């Protein structure tokens, strides 16, 4: 059986999820040059917001109604936390040296994890999440409903974002702020509002990714944001941080590279010890190091004009 199509599909699916989360890193970085390390946890809280909605609805509700409601619930929680983080943790430090907001972000990330672990019922272990588990065979590739949801969500979100950035007034204001915040302010753009919108879009996309994550893997836990956040950050850097298309491309490249490395490297003679699922992270970060060495600006580069 030729496993390549299936492995490519696995990689693209994983990559779409990285890409959706990576948008949050890249948008915020593009505008305020801040690496929001708490973004992984915003992703996680989005999942718990969606789970709360699921638990509140009567069992037996059709998935057609459930999934949109869960998306809304997750999005409300994630966006509120993202915007709250901006307002109360990052804005007071806007003029401070770079290291201060970075450390704040790490602290916020730990704080959010602990809040969920201690205060969400039974969150000290994995909580079951409704799954979309019907499978479809397309040629030699098996995918399930949750995968279709993920792909559609990723495409829709990217299309929406591309249109929003290039066509809407606010989107153009975001581009201007990214290029030069001071001049943009002089031109009458409310930069604080733009920054809040950047955080909100990041939170929204993270919530979509976390619902997709829950539907795909069938459970969520308070630590899921840690590794997903690191991977998404890697994806953002890989694609060129600050560049929204780069974030999605970086996510896809990372997901595919990771999957193919864990699937095939141990089949290469002499490389048996370096393959397998346990080496996936090693190859992912090796790729990041290579890209940083030879193309420090990332695959698509941080093209200032598109940065938003």
């Amino acid at each position, binding site marked *: 059986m030729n496993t390549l199509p299936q492995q490519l599909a696995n990689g693209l699916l994983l990559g779409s999820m990285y890409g959706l989360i990576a948008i949050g890193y890249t948008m915020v970085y593009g505008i305020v040059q801040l690496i929001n390390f708490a973004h992984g946890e915003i992703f996680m809280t989005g999942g718990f917001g969606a789970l709360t909605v699921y638990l509140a609805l009567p069992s037996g509700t059709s998935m057609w109604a459930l999934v949109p409601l869960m998306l809304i619930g997750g999005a409300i929680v994630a966006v509120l936390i993202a915007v709250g983080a901006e307002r109360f943790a990052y804005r007071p430090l806007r003029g401070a040296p770079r290291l201060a907001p970075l450390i704040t972000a790490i602290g916020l990330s730990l704080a959010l994890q602990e809040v969920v672990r201690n205060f969400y019922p039974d969150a000290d272990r994995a909580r079951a999440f409704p799954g979309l588990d019907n499978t479809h065979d397309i040629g030699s590739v*098996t995918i399930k409903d949750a995968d279709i949801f993920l792909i559609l969500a990723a495409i829709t979100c990217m299309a929406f974002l591309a249109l929003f950035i290039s066509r809407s007034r606010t989107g153009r204001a975001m581009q201007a702020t990214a290029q030069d915040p001071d001049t943009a302010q002089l031109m009458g753009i409310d930069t604080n509002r733009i920054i809040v919108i950047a955080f909100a879009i990041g939170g929204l996309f993270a919530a979509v990714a976390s619902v997709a994550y829950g539907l795909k893997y*069938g459970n969520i836990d308070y630590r899921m944001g840690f590794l997903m956040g690191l991977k998404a950050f890697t994806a953002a850097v890989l694609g060129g941080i600050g560049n929204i298309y780069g974030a999605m491309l970086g996510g896809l490249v990372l997901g595919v590279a990771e999957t193919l490395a864990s*699937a095939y490297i*141990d089949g290469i003679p002499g490389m048996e010890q370096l393959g397998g699922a346990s080496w996936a992270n090693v190859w992912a970060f090796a790729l990041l190091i290579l890209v940083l060495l030879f193309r420090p600006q990332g695959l698509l580069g941080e093209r200032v004009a598109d940065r938003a």
Partner: protein
Amino acid sequence: MRQRSMVIFTSILTTGALTLTACGSRDDSGDGDSGDGGSTTLTIGVDAPLSGENSTTGLGIQYGAQIAVDDANKKNTVPGVKFKIKALDDKAQPATGQQNATALVGDKSVVGAVGPLNSGVAQSMLQVFSSADMVQISPANTNPELTMGKNWQTSPKRPYKTYFRTATTDALQGGFAAEYAYTGLKKKNVFVVDDKQTYGAGLAKLFNEAFVKAGGKVAGTDHVNTGDKDFGALVSKIKAAKADLVYYGGQYDESALITKQLKDAGVNIPLFGGDGMFATTYIETAGKPSEGDLATAIGVPVDTLPGAKAFVDTYKAKGYKGDYGAYGAYAYDATTAIINSVKAAKAANDDKLPSGDELRSKVVEEVQKADFEGISGKLSFDEFGDTTNKQLTVYQVEKGKWKAVKTGTYDPS
């Protein structure tokens, strides 16, 4: 460019952070009731993962020990001495386990320790307890090296005389599972996966050897990381290998996800694992896909033990968290062994409690001589510190519950 150096700096930070996947916080809760004012109060340390990964089974150990102490205090097992529990969370991390061991040794009221859950954690604690000459009884460790040394297959030699366990070793568990898979389930082509931890990798290797020896074929092997969530690549590999069984050496956190993703991808073969995944959380997390999966566990089913009934009732009545099924009864017996040894040490010393370090070393001697009827069966230790009770049970998920399908012993020869 300023920003670029920032990106590179944070990337390095990120990569560094990955190597320290430990997160979560310290949890010092779990102190039991302290004794009466007039009597001496001795502490029994408990070390297990009480939060995060593996915590369901870890909490079962904590509360198993708690009930043993409560019972001993109620029955006044050692007149004039009350016991309490000091439970520390090792988060399944060897480094944290070592810190906890040091903390327990440093606390003068501690006479012995129960735990840990993970064999890898135990390895980092052995030396600490040995130096302090303090007894440690694990209800759960199954790696053979802990009691018989590195060359346990050829020339077993006990490395630490302070370490005991009430759990049977993987040497028997892996073989027992392989035998059942081959002759009981009639599986011929198995894919073996492990999590590279001391427990998981050891168990998977032993299963692998015994399965091949029995005449089976290994379709492929792979390793995963603890904490991984996406096993898509692994699942496709298993599918392509046309395996009829997956054996997993590791804990339920990963195996529950693997079995779900496996069955979601249309690969309807059972997953078989060791006692590390024998927990209700496994079924809760994996849901329906766990139906038909198997796990071996040490001892005979707790619910069938006449002596354990009161224990199970108390556990449920108190509403304790976690799962007593895997190790709760063994933690109870391990704790009782320490309490009985304190009693014996006191009796041997003209009914006076030996002081400090002397008490600790006397307790080690007395545990070695232990021989009593515990709630999990008769308890005594051989010359390596291993339990003489070598019963094992295969459980299978049936209608969302672990159901015992075969109990017996394994003869490795």
